[in-house]
């Protein structure tokens, strides 16, 4: 367990190091913005992975929590004049409370009913942000000012470094949960609720906690996205966000430890490479989602695990496989 934890952390350290030297290699602000967005989507996907990939509870409200986080952060500053350092935690707490309040009744629902109920919630929220112009600024949204303390104000590069660190912390927690007893209990809930219950797992509590945690991940991601975009608008909560999220989860590998990050890198960067195809983008998104779902159910993580295992096989003792691999193969059911 200890060595596994260290082993996983090594990969995280590697990711962070690469992420931190990356801006030096980039030539434009646009590129910096793109790599910043990777970490935003990685955070969003980590929460979704814990909720759906590990615990088996689908939520189509992640983009709503993403938007509520950003709106909360923007409005607490714009309307109440709060400092961003106060607005940020308060916005996250607001999202956590909203998630707890709607999660309590909704998590009694299963599978498709849960999917629909959460979708109804997010459509309602998007409808409100679009229509309640006086409060939310309507489709124009609300400006988010750059974080400023005295004379210092956060540059785009500094924002990027902050996001990398936040995402790394998120990833450490995400992987710690998956690798330990908490993740085990969550998988038990996914595989067999009554079985889990009779082993002492409080199924309702597990579901609610993970739902709230996933919402918190989404909120932090949303605030990050708001800071990158320097505004928040209703598109934060709209359908394309959940399409991206699902694609990240599936392409990266559901229920894996590094799937959210790998998926986010691919899904944010691939359209850039495809940009010259322009109008083919939607089609390619759809095909990618389908192809991965059908042919690579463990996503790129699964592929990398298999390649890694093949390379390591001669040196490592046969028989005992790493827990990572087991989790990868566990996948989402």
């Amino acid at each position, binding site marked *: *367990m200890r060595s596994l934890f260290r082993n996983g952390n090594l990969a995280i350290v590697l990711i962070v190091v690469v992420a931190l030297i990356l801006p030096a290699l980039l030539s434009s602000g646009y590129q910096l913005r793109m790599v910043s967005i990777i970490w935003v989507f990685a955070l969003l996907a980590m929460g979704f992975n814990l909720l759906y990939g590990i615990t088996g509870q689908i939520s189509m409200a992640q983009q709503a929590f993403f938007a509520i986080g950003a709106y909360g952060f923007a409005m607490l500053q714009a309307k109440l004049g709060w400092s961003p350092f106060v607005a940020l935690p308060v916005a996250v707490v607001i999202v956590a409370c909203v998630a707890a309040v709607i999660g309590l009744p909704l998590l009694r629902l299963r599978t498709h009913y849960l999917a629909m109920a959460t979708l109804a919630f997010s459509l309602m929220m998007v409808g409100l942000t679009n229509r309640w112009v006086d409060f939310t600024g309507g489709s124009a949204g609300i400006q988010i000012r750059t974080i400023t303390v005295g004379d210092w104000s956060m540059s785009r590069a500094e924002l990027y470094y902050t996001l990398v660190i936040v995402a790394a912390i998120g990833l450490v927690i995400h992987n710690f949960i998956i690798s330990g*007893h908490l993740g085990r209990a969550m998988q038990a809930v*996914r595989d*067999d609720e009554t079985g889990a219950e*009779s*082993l002492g797992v*409080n199924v309702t509590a597990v579901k609610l*906690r993970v739902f709230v945690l996933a919402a918190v991940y989404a909120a932090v991601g949303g605030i990050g996205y708001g800071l990158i975009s320097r505004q928040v608008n209703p598109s934060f909560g709209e359908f394309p966000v959940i399409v991206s999220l699902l694609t990240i989860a599936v392409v990266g590998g559901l229920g894996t430890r590094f799937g959210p990050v790998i998926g986010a890198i691919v899904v944010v960067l691939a359209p850039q490479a495809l940009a010259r195809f322009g109008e083919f983008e939607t089609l390619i998104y759809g095909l990618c989602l389908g192809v991965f779902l059908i042919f690579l159910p463990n996503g790129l993580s699964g592929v990398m695990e298999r390649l890694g295992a093949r390379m390591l096989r001669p040196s490592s003792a046969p028989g005992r496989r790493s827990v990572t691999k087991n989790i990868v193969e566990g996948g989402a059911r």
Partner: protein
Amino acid sequence: MNAVTRNIGEGAPLLEVRNGTKRFGGLVAVNDVSFSVRGGEVVGLIGPNGAGKSTLFNLVTGVAQLSAGEIFFDGKSITGLPLHGRPSIGMSRTFQIVRLFPGMTVLQNVLMGFHPQLPDGLLRTLLGLRHSLREERRVTEKAMELLEFVGMEDLADEKIGELPYGKQRLVEIARAMAIEPRILLLDEPAAGLNGTETANLGAMLRVLNERGVTVLIVEHDIDFMMGLCDQIVVLDHGVKIAEGRPSEVQSNEKVIEAYLGRRGGNAEN
């Protein structure tokens, strides 16, 4: 060492069902049944098909709720105790059809049995991180010991789906033992096992009982039960018709009638 744990018939009741009744609409599946299991005993619950054994077992394990009556564990009523509250007071069970988590390995399945002993919730786990990690290491070692006990230590990292049924049953028993139960509730543990596997299971349960675990067991296999149990409770049509040592029950006329009267050869089955 037997003397310490096997003072049969003298200990206080560990598990007691008082006037247990379960109605499904107009049908009375279990009718005013009372019995008790003393600490250290192996008690068997038998009866012809449809006698209400499974229903009674579900009432005891908390999967179904009593229509009337009460159930006590160690002197306290557990009638309304939720399912997830039972392992932590020392009640552990297996299922009629093996119920493991297919997405996990053998080891992870056994580790699930330690769930109530581990810190609850993310915040508590992170706040006591050193303790949490130490605990995880401790229970992993204990889980490996349990797998050794059932002879499966080299299959620890196998996926559940790749195991034959008999092995899956052993994983389930190892997991049930992980709870460190005071009472082990077994629902037809020999179902689906071959002769050798059944014999091994019997031997294993006897060892566990000698180590002080009380056992309540529902089973079709009469021979298996006669050799294993200290006390046997016989149900028919939801009513308790006999109770006693295996030899007493075997010669009880009501029991013979219940078995032979309806389905001739079932008693030898």
